[in-house]
């Protein structure tokens, strides 16, 4: 008997579908490049405090070294207050990534819940949610974020909320579309036939089957959220000075763009590389997780 129990537990050893997705992803060169870049950026952001001291290197003024072109000592040069641009970029990654991730997380939670509910419940509720969604997406997201930040006040948290709300509508759409497809599958009927209540069907069968599309959407949206955050900071509505946010660095460098172009160039490149790597990874994930492409 004990022998049988052992045999049974052995058969039950877990296997993950993550492994299969990983094998698909590994074949996609773009996704791998994106992932490696992203790992570098994240590692840089995490390790920044070890190399640089926030108070002296990142926000501390050093007027003697101001406006220096890139050199061995300051590989990206220094800004108008003599701060090392590379140090600020590395530190800035913390802000940009945090704002991007948290904003998308806000959008994902609100958007998925609303979208899934709209898709599953249908009827008037769906209509109301989708029309609100239409209204939100007809307002340019920067304008909307400006409105939110102006009404809530200027702070990093409010920036996250503003960008999050501005990127909710696409999540509602994706979640609703995914749920509508999954809802009509026969396994949902089968789940009802064995007496599962609706909330459990949504949680156990519908959400897991929509998740891959939502994850892909999230990865792609982190990039645009970073850009939105940078735009707001550029307009002076984002992370308050002197914190080294990429958008506000661009804004500060703008005054000197004719003579000291490096001051805008490097934060710009940082934004570009981060967004690019996220998009590469997102596209790769879409290919790896899309059930239609599964062989």
């Amino acid at each position, binding site marked *: 008997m004990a022998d*049988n*129990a052992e045999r*049974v*537990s052995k*058969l*039950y*050893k*877990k*296997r993950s*579908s993550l492994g299969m997705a990983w094998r698909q992803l590994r074949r996609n060169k773009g996704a791998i490049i994106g992932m490696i870049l992203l790992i570098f950026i994240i590692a840089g952001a995490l390790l920044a405090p070890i190399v640089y001291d926030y108070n002296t290197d990142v926000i501390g003024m050093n007027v003697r070294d101001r406006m220096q072109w890139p050199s061995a000592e300051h590989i990206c040069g220094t800004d108008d207050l003599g701060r090392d641009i590379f140090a600020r970029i590395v530190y800035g990654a913390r802000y940009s990534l945090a704002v991007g991730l948290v904003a998308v997380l806000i959008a994902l939670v609100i958007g998925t819940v609303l979208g899934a509910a709209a898709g599953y419940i249908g009827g008037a509720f769906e209509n109301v949610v989708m029309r609100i969604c239409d209204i939100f997406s007809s307002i340019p997201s920067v304008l909307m974020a400006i409105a939110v930040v102006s009404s809530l006040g200027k702070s990093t948290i409010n920036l996250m909320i503003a960008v999050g709300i501005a990127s909710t509508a696409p999540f509602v759409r994706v979640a609703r579309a995914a749920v509508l497809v999954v809802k009509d*599958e*026969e*396994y949902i*009927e*089968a*789940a*009802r*036939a*064995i*007496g*599962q209540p609706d909330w*459990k069907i949504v949680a156990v*069968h519908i959400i*897991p*089957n929509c998740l891959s599309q939502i994850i892909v959407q999230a990865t792609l949206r982190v990039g645009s959220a970073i850009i939105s955050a940078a735009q707001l900071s550029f307009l002076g509505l984002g992370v308050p000075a002197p914190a080294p946010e990429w958008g506000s660095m661009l804004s500060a460098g703008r005054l000197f763009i004719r003579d000291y172009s490096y001051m805008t160039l490097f934060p710009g490149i940082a934004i570009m590389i981060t967004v690019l790597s996220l998009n590469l990874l997102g596209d790769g994930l879409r290919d790896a997780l899309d*059930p239609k492409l*599964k062989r």
Partner: protein
Amino acid sequence: MADTILEVKHLKKYFKTGRGMLHAVDDINFTLERGKTLGLVGESGCGKSTTGRVILRLLEPTSGEIIFEGKDISRIKGSEMRHMRKDLQIIFQDPFSSLDPKKTVSQIIAEPIKENHILRGKHAIEERVLELMDTVGLAERYINTYPHELDGGRRQRIGIARALAMEPKLIICDEPVSALDVSIQAQILNLLRELQEKLGLTYIFITHDLSVVNHFSDDIAVMYLGQIVEKAPAEELFEHPIHPYTQALLSAIPIPELGHRRERVKLTGEITSPIEPPEECRFAARCPLCDDGICRKMVPELIEVRESHFVACPIKQKEMGF
């Protein structure tokens, strides 16, 4: 007295559409004895699958009674409904969409057991899953595979195991073999028959394939646009089809034998729309026997013209003296 397990009385299911009410199931009646199989035959859109789903209460009936073991289940709710679910189960047509692609074989089969607390304790459930897999002929090594890694036949076996996990009394088989290859089809048909003998199951077998239903059923009901047009014991129906639609359907089956190229009952005309159909025989537009004076006057009634042989064709009824 016969042991009746299911009785369906005046069952109707209408769907709202932009152009009016679609009469998917329109006043059907039948009884089913325990341990027997009723074949529900018809072409696409005749309402056979809707009938199955309404009986299971996956769709709400518009009106009518569904009496299961002496109790009307057409209006029950909550815990009564949960209880009913255990006795009535369904096997789906498409083994590719009827299994959750994100769950392993063991999770799929264990789900009904856990949901309805049929067994408690991890080991008891695990062993029951293996037992069920053995019953339906699935090798143990597939326990942790995902449905998309298996072929159609094995997937259909998972679907059967999931239905059996509830220890049901009645199973509705909705085209369980139409998506499978011939040789696999036979394996599944034999399995379903074995299970019926072993577990004393009652089946409602929904299909468009008359040769399958003939092999499998005790009684056959032929449906056309939401109504039963003929109902009889299988052998009787195949040997003496009376309704012109049944005759056309039977003569249309290609028979895999030499020297069977034969004359067909030809059907012409367009299929009547099921949306707000007129009060007449629904088959009238395609019927070779149609007499407008009789057939277009009213909806024909299902009358017993021989022993347990029911037909809803006014022309034939008249011919036979009713």
